[in-house]
């Protein structure tokens, strides 16, 4: 098991290097450091000196990938790519192009992101699995049919409409929660209710349907027939036998996203004005802040890989047949 985890973590290194190269290429193939300096400085203050100064301050004054002027190994190491990437691997994200410390920004913005993502995740999972079990319990009845129709209808509505509709109905018509914004401490709760609610509702359709399919597939298995032949009531068959086995495919889709909850939701955060990592990313994208985007990509990839690993480990808990080697 330990050997497996170590091997998987070692395997993550080439992936992260690949991720880094890819983001680097995406930004610098078309966008020279000079372009970035010009954009950051604004039209008025652009002089060759200012650009040079801007680049020097942020370490963009080196060649991109190959420093022909340097000697020996430094040809490779004394470059933007190398300098920027290596520091990220040791957890140093440096400063954003607007001068702020990225690591600090991330730690302060993590809170609001998690405050939305975690309740959404837990509530969403609970509600969807409950609904799916309900539909499966009443399978092949009118209730089941109506439920599926509702699910398909719900998943055919764009998430945007859930947000707008929620804001309009809950905030404008009913005045139950603020339309957007955020504040620290306990006050946060009233700002969180609406985004969490909207997020959960918008996901119910597709996830309920997905879980229902998984349950229905499990329910045709031979061991379920054995359980019924024992004389177990349907309720016990569903909860003890079907649910336990259905957890295995469900875990595949669910556990992998848990670490990524840190990243926040771009859409929800930008629509509800939550100062989390999602809106941070959006702002960075719109400002073309390479340092921030690169850091977020890096963190996102690390979290995804952690998620994959967590999925594998969760299998060993859910499925006694799986032994990691």
């Amino acid at each position: 098991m330990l050997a497996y985890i170590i091997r998987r973590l070692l395997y993550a290194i080439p992936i992260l290097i690949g991720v880094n190269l890819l983001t680097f290429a995406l930004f610098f193939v078309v966008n020279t450091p000079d372009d970035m300096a010009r954009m950051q400085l604004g039209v008025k203050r652009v002089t060759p000196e200012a650009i040079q100064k801007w680049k020097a301050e942020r370490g963009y004054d080196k060649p991109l990938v190959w420093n022909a002027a340097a000697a020996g190994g430094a040809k490779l190491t004394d470059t933007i790519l190398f300098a920027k990437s290596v520091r990220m691997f040791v957890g140093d994200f440096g400063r954003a192009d607007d001068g702020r410390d990225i690591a600090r920004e991330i730690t302060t913005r993590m809170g609001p992101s998690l405050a939305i993502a975690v309740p959404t995740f837990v509530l969403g999972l609970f509600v969807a699995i409950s609904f799916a079990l309900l539909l499966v319990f009443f399978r092949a009845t009118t209730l089941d049919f109506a439920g599926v129709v509702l699910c398909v209808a719900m998943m055919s509505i764009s998430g945007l409409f859930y947000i707008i509709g929620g804001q309009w109905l809950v905030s404008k018509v009913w005045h139950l929660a603020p339309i957007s914004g955020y504040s620290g401490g306990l006050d946060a709760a009233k700002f969180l209710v609406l985004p969490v609610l909207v997020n959960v509702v918008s996901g119910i359709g597709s996830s309920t349907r997905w879980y229902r399919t998984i349950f229905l597939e499990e329910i045709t298995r031979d061991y379920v027939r054995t359980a019924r032949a024992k004389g177990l009531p349907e309720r016990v068959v569903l909860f003890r036998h079907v649910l336990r086995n259905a957890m295995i495919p469900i875990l595949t889709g669910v556990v992998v996203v848990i670490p990524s909850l840190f990243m926040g939701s771009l859409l929800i955060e930008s629509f509800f004005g939550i100062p989390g990592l999602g809106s941070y990313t959006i702002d960075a994208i719109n400002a073309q802040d390479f340092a921030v985007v690169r850091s977020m990509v890096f963190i996102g990839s690390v979290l995804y890989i952690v998620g994959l690993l967590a999925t594998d480990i969760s299998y060993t808990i859910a499925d006694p047949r799986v032994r990691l080697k």
Partner: protein
Amino acid sequence: MSILEVRDLAIHIRAARPVDGVSFDIAAGECYALLGESGCGKSMTALGLMRLLPAAAEVAFGSVSFEGTDLLALPESGMRDVRGGGIGMIFQEPATSLNPVLTVGRQICESLHLHAKLNGAAARARAAELLEQVGIPDPVRRLDEFPFQLSGGLRQRVMIAIALAGSPRLLIADEPTTALDVTIQAQVLDLLDELRRTQGMALLLITHDLGVVARMADRIGVMYAGQLVEEASREAFFSRPAHPYSVRLFAALPDAANRGGRLTTIPGSVPAADVRHIGCRFADRCGEVMPVCSTELPPWREVDAGQRVRCHLPGAAPAVSSRVGAGDTASEAATPPLLEVRDLQVHFPIRRGLLQRAVGAVRAVDGMSLQLMPGRTLALVGESGCGKTTAGKAMLQLIRPTGGSVRLAGDELTTRSTQELRPLRAKMQMVFQDPFASLNPRLRVGEIIAEGMQALATGDANVAAKIGPLLEQVGLRADMATRYPHEFSGGQRQRIAIARALAVNPQLLICDEPTSALDVSVQAQILNLLSDLQRDLKLAYLFITHNIAVVDYLAHDVAVMYLGRVVESGSAEEVLRSPRHPYTQALLAAVPRVDGVRGDAPKLAGDMPSAAKPPAGCHFHPRCPLADDECKRDYPGETRVGATQVVRCFKAG
């Protein structure tokens, strides 16, 4: 006094009627066998009794009375007390019928809690007792194991323990041993028989295997196309079966008696469940068919006390004699061998640790040697997991062997590259086990057959013109070339697979369990076809099988495999009539015989060990009744014990 009375049970799945008016009684403590080929509605009947039918199926009419209670009228909650408590059930596939994520103990205790109202330590203790009772060694430890940690035989025992937990008065066993090896089958059948006698439990046994019926049943109901066609006591049924279908089932069984002759086949196959019948359902496959058969459903008719039949023929159906064919056509051993295998090894590395180094190997085939003469049939016999299929594929170089040599007509195969092998591939072909997986569903039959000719460029100028004759050669029609595999039955598909192999004019055909997925009557057709082809084309067969009866019927030579090695080989006559290796003896004794005669050789205990960790010394010693210290130390060398018979056992000298 009947414990179960089934009257006119009919089960419909939309337009299909898989069970169409079935009536029978089972007395307390009796073993009643429902016998029939696949698709006859046997399993559907059993599920209908338990009201466990799949969602689309429903009981259309009829009544099921268990100890006087009408089961079909019970509310679902009442039915739950009957399930497990009154009627227990075990299924065909122990591998999938146990919940993979719950421990064995939990699955037994669940039933104890429900029916015996036992909880906690008391339930656990009782569960251990039950495991002990079904013959599972070390029962307390097994309680905390998961089904995947058990072998197939042990899983089926656990299934039986679960069924016993509710102390049922009737146990329904749906093909309980079909998925098991013959030595394990013998163990499980013994167990069921013993439980029935000690617990006074009635047994409804559902099976297609006449041998199992002869071994177990008191009374027999023969099912055909959703109806019972004959009901009789075991003695009456096995001495004089009355329905033409029953008679043919017996005649289709291969064994040494009709060796070299042809098997009686039943033409066609079981009609689909959505076909409507007016007259007798067996009419269009019956040899004694009369005009009345197709217009009038035959009534039940008493043949003898306790034997009744649904047939218009007066008296019992006449016996069908097997017509003796051309006799033994095998050439004698003067010619050089066509296939010569020496010390063949196929090892699959087991990788572990940080760097995935190979820390061991699954020795699937571990030094096997054999010879096959042109035009003869060599049967490679063994239980599942002994490496016989892997060996067959390694000979064809579909799996590259780890070591040893394979020579085909003098040409060494193992050292050749994929390119260099190509010219030799036309000489050797394979027929696979599963006729549903061995034909690409997206290709037409003609394309499937043409593939080999095109790939090997056999020089046939007109590939298309060869397809028709090939199809006719295997007993199909030439115009079937434009159809897709899904339009054919299992037996027809296996014919197509044989035609595909024949297309490149091979000298050697490796047949990997070619009939194990087929019903007895269809198996007979395929075996007849194979022996015709051998006679006409002088083919050599390497026949990989676990079915001793088939071996007895068609093999000239036999090699018995155990855990990657051949433990005994020789002519069929010598090996099967006077087996010398204790394993061969046990294997032959374990086969349930239609004549009901029990072998006196010792029954094997336990399972075959894993090929990743074969026992030291003779691989067979942990299960061998004769084993001593020498056997635990060394692997025995070859001992010649007859004209052709060679055995690897210290005790056979």
